[in-house]
């Protein structure tokens, strides 16, 4: 399988390969009244072709903003995103329109993200029309192919979103994202709104499509067990910043960062015979308008030391391919 983590981690050739996506010092601040809300505050990571990078963290930590800025739905406050080696924010509008065919977004909410007044044909066909790819009969044929690809019956082509279940709607959203044969897809919590039995359907579909079409994913989620299953590597965020980044096995089995450890121990395990001591973090996530000084996690960190309030921990490659930002690793 091309998405095997070993290809990314150990294969010398792929190490030399240019990543499909390179995120450099990416920041996105929002203005809230007179204040700055630092939604994304300095991201640095790569995504290789055919790879899935999982992005996890509590709600409000900046995952969606990161994903949206990475496909230039938002202009960044600072930093670069290189797609196939070129900074997407440098592109003219015309060039960007071309790039947009290669980068797509799948939304969390299969109910809100589809226009209720459009038929399935119109929804899935819209990107084809906008980019002038195919018209008329050709377009209809292409939509039918896409429906089959995501496991829906081509007979559904004239139906409206409300006639479908949540899982089916998410398939329609996926078909739309695939219409232009993209290379890179940001999946923003694509399964969070679905029942567990249906989540597995959608995840299997995303994995199959990746294999067939050589897709590269940024998979945003808060369910760590599903992220671990689908991702080659996982990036953990907290309050707009990166905490830890590593291949998913290592991150889940040998986490270094206190926040990653707490996240992992918070996930309830569906096995009543497993009893464990849990790390319970106190309090809530602080406001990103006024984040704590030094390490942003220090107000909830069970290991916080004096230095944590005065100095921002450096992003450090603690072991080959395993990055962490924490003063415990100096």
């Amino acid at each position: 399988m091309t998405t095997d983590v070993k290809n990314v981690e150990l294969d010398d050739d792929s190490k030399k390969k240019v990543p499909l996506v390179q995120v450099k010092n990416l920041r996105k601040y929002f203005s809230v009244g007179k204040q700055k809300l630092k939604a994304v505050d300095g991201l640095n990571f790569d995504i290789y072709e055919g790879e899935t990078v999982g992005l996890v963290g509590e709600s409000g930590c900046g995952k969606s903003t990161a994903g949206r800025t990475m496909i230039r739905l938002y202009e960044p406050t600072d930093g670069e995103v290189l797609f196939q080696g070129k900074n997407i924010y440098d592109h003219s509008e015309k060039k960007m329109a071309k790039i947009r065919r290669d980068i797509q977004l799948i939304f969390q909410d299969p109910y809100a993200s589809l226009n209720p007044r459009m038929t399935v044909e119109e929804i899935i066909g819209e990107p084809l029309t906008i980019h002038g790819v195919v018209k008329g009969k050709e377009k209809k044929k292409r939509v039918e192919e896409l429906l089959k690809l995501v496991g829906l019956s081509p007979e559904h082509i004239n139906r409206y979103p409300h006639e479908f279940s949540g899982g089916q709607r998410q398939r329609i959203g996926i078909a739309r994202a695939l219409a232009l044969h993209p290379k890179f897809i940001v999946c923003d919590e694509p399964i969070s709104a679905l029942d567990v039995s249906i989540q597995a359907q959608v995840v299997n579909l995303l994995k199959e499509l990746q294999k067939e079409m050589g897709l590269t994913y940024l998979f945003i989620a808060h369910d760590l067990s599903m992220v671990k299953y689908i991702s080659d590597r996982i990036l953990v965020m907290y309050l707009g910043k990166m905490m830890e980044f590593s291949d998913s096995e290592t991150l889940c089995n040998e986490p270094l960062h206190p926040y990653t450890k707490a996240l992992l121990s918070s996930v309830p395990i569906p096995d009543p015979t497993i009893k464990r001591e849990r790390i319970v973090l106190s309090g809530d996530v602080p406001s990103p308008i006024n984040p704590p000084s030094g390490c942003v996690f220090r107000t909830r960190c069970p290991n916080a030391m004096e230095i944590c309030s005065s100095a921002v921990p450096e992003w450090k490659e603690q072991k080959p391919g395993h990055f962490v930002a924490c003063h415990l690793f100096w």
Partner: protein
Amino acid sequence: MGKLLEVKNLRIDFKTYGGEVHAVRGVNFEVKQGETIGIVGESGCGKSVTAKAIMKLLASPPARYKEGSITFNGKNLIEASEREMERIRGNEISMIFQDPMTSLNPTSKVGVQIMESVLKHNQISRKKAYNHALETLQLVGIPQPEKRMEQYPHEFSGGMRQRAMIAMALVCQPKLLIADEPTTALDVTIQAQILELMKDIQKQSETAIILITHDLGVVAEICDRVVVMYAGKVVESGTVLEIFQNPEHPYTKGLLKSVPRFDMDKSVPLSPIIGSPPDLFSPPKGCSFYPRCDYAMKICKDHDPEPEDVGNGQITACWLQHSMAKVMNTHTATNVGGGTKR
């Protein structure tokens, strides 16, 4: 332990413009004093309707209690008057919801709201009620409770609001707490806090808990017994250990298999349950899981299986458990349902 609640053959319909929704189609389970029951199942399977029915919170119309009984402490609540229910609600049975703002009044101080709940059901002084409210806020782990008593719900963070709602539900020391997806909207680290809190409640009080959730991990962690619902019916129930280790109903098996395990090999595809649940406007005549079931037999299509005791108090409604089917199955049964193994 004594029986606290018994729900028997409960059937509830809703009258809508589109026709009648048969939301609850024969639900049976019981809750003993002090135990924690988990109710799981896909969205729309009737979990919340069942919970609200116990509290008699369903507006009628459109809801109609068609059949069955809800016996709480020896009394059938279906026949109870609204006045009696007002005495029971918040006092003997409390309910908490996914969204705490459904229980908290945004225009009134949190402390006042909790005190009023105490005063409504107890003839004690305001001073005593105040102290009791304060203690309860402490119990649910709200720091600086004196200050918090004076604040409005919007001044609380999400996790703290959830705690305030739990405090409100517990302040009268109910015999039964119904928690409808209390952690679904919360982040995992806050969910962990609330789960630890619920474990404390289990230890420190005699309160029985009905926990509605779709998270099998949450069930495994804090429930004693599990009730699995599908399309308005209970398809299986039993102890947590039996349900997770020896599930008998194909739906329960499917649910358990569809969640990824932490130690799972990534190259193995997940095993989803194919298709989606039936329309409750016209539920199927036979087993409602038939179109999705990998084990479906001819009889399942037109005949609904009765719940059978399969041992150790585990109850399963599936033709595979029929004493005759068990013998027959090994010889002649063929897969005729819509379920296909992937």
